[in-house]
């Protein structure tokens, strides 16, 4: 079954909820190896998204996704702002005119979205960034059968994402602010990879409704 517009709106809504809930936790993660603002940034961004959403809720999927991207882009700031902004905007472009999202559509969406992160941030696997999560997740999603229901595909990607997040812990950061810490960045999960896991978890939940 493809993702409906109601499910997409539920996904966005759940992300807003989780970033309010995890604001302090994400900020603490960022305090350890960054500048203690990632949770604040994500919370500010999704609060703004919720403000904007009513103006496009009756539009098609890409219009909604683009609004999410543009709003994150103009309200999150820092490194994660343009990364997530690009993620949603590039993803939107892959869904031209669609009103629901099949598994095949989701593959195209995610490939474009993750491509946006790579293009903007130029992370490599092992740099200890959100891409350390999205790289394996994208691979898992692309490997799925186009005929498999989207909910199943996302559910199957979740353990991959969890493992990927855990795998960032022993890494020494080579991108972003954490890289200035050198060896002191070892032993902490990456804040951006953590927020990315929340995005996938909330998608899984939204597809249940």
């Amino acid at each position, binding site marked *: 079954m493809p993702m409906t517009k109601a499910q997409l709106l539920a996904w966005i809504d759940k992300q807003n909820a989780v970033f309010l809930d995890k604001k302090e936790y994400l900020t603490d993660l960022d305090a350890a190896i960054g500048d203690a603002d990632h949770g*604040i940034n994500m919370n500010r961004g999704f609060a703004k998204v919720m403000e904007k959403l009513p103006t496009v809720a009756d539009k098609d999927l890409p219009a909604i996704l683009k609004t999410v991207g543009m709003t994150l882009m103009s309200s*999150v*700031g820092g490194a994660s*702002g343009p990364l997530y902004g690009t993620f949603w905007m590039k993803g939107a472009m892959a869904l031209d005119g669609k009103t629901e999202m099949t598994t095949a559509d989701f593959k195209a969406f995610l490939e474009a979205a993750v491509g946006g992160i790579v293009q903007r941030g130029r992370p490599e696997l092992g740099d200890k960034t959100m891409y350390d999560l999205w790289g394996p997740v994208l691979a898992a999603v692309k490997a799925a059968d186009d005929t498999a229901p989207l909910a199943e595909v996302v559910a199957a990607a979740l353990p991959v994402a969890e493992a990927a997040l855990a795998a960032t812990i022993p890494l020494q950061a080579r*991108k972003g*602010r954490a890289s*200035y810490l050198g060896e*002191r960045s070892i032993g902490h999960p990456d804040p951006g990879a953590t927020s990315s896991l929340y995005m996938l978890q909330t998608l899984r939940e939204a597809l249940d409704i």
Partner: protein
Amino acid sequence: MKKLINNVEDVVQEQLQGMALAHPELTVKFDPCYVVRADAPVKGKVALVSGGGSGHEPMHGGFVGQGMLDGACPGAVFTSPTPDQMYECAKAVDGGAGVLFIVKNYTGDVMNFETAAELVAAEGIKVQNILIDDDVAVKNSLWTAGRRGVGTTVLAEKIVGAAAEAGYDLDQCADLCRKVNQYGRSFGVALTSCTVPAAGKPTFVLGEDEVEMGIGIHGEPGTHRMPIKSVDEMTAYAAAQIIDDPAYTRVVREWDGQGWADKTLTDAPFAKGDQVIAFVNSMGGTPVSELYAVYRKLDEVCKAKGLTIVRNLVGPYITSLEMQGFSITLLKADDEILKFWDAPAKTPGFVR
């Protein structure tokens, strides 16, 4: 936390409102937030735009005005501004000759300014992004996000601002800005921490006799911590870090008109006989009197190493809120740089 503030959420906005009231020669816009010359756009002149997190005042908003920046985009305290600010600001200042974004090398700033450049270019406005990455406390670019942009930013905004005023086109401005960045190196020392208003507590804690060496401008940890030494010893150390710094190579991304192109840049080290502009900066809480003690020793060290200080700047220009401490920037100065360094500037934070 003792500060002259009302609510922590309103700090940046209220400070900008105060600045707008005090400086009618500037226009401050909110939502999105940017500062421009009241007479912008200046027809036919390349427009200079910079920006970054707030908390470094007078940089950047205080450097908007004749002979320096056309616009500045202030983010939240120590947080990069967003592309919409930069985009609107660029549109407001473009006088037809294009827009140069002067970008301090922090991942957030770089990505936001790159996004902005794409948006601006899509409007048919000529645009270029030049990075400032001059902090020698960051040793390599391979295992890090590269050197941070610090003191050289101030000098670049002054020098390239004057060149734009003198009629340089966008490529010439970009070339000059890149050169200034490649000729400039900085090193910073913190005597105390600073407190981000929203955080409410000091970013780090130093003992009563400790200093942090090699800090950036956001209260990031430096290279090491040590007991405070005499100003002569600390100055000599900082100056040596800069003067003895070897060649530095990294890849930067510049706009080629259509898309992004990688460029490998290598900065030559200082050499005996170089003329330099010496910039002794306060981190915000150190008064100018103490900076002159730094300058005194810096002059001696430069002489001993065969460098001649031909111009100088001493004062609080790129700060970290109320942090006590100083940074030193040395900029190799050729005739082109000196000519524009000496040119007039009329801004709230820098007048010549």
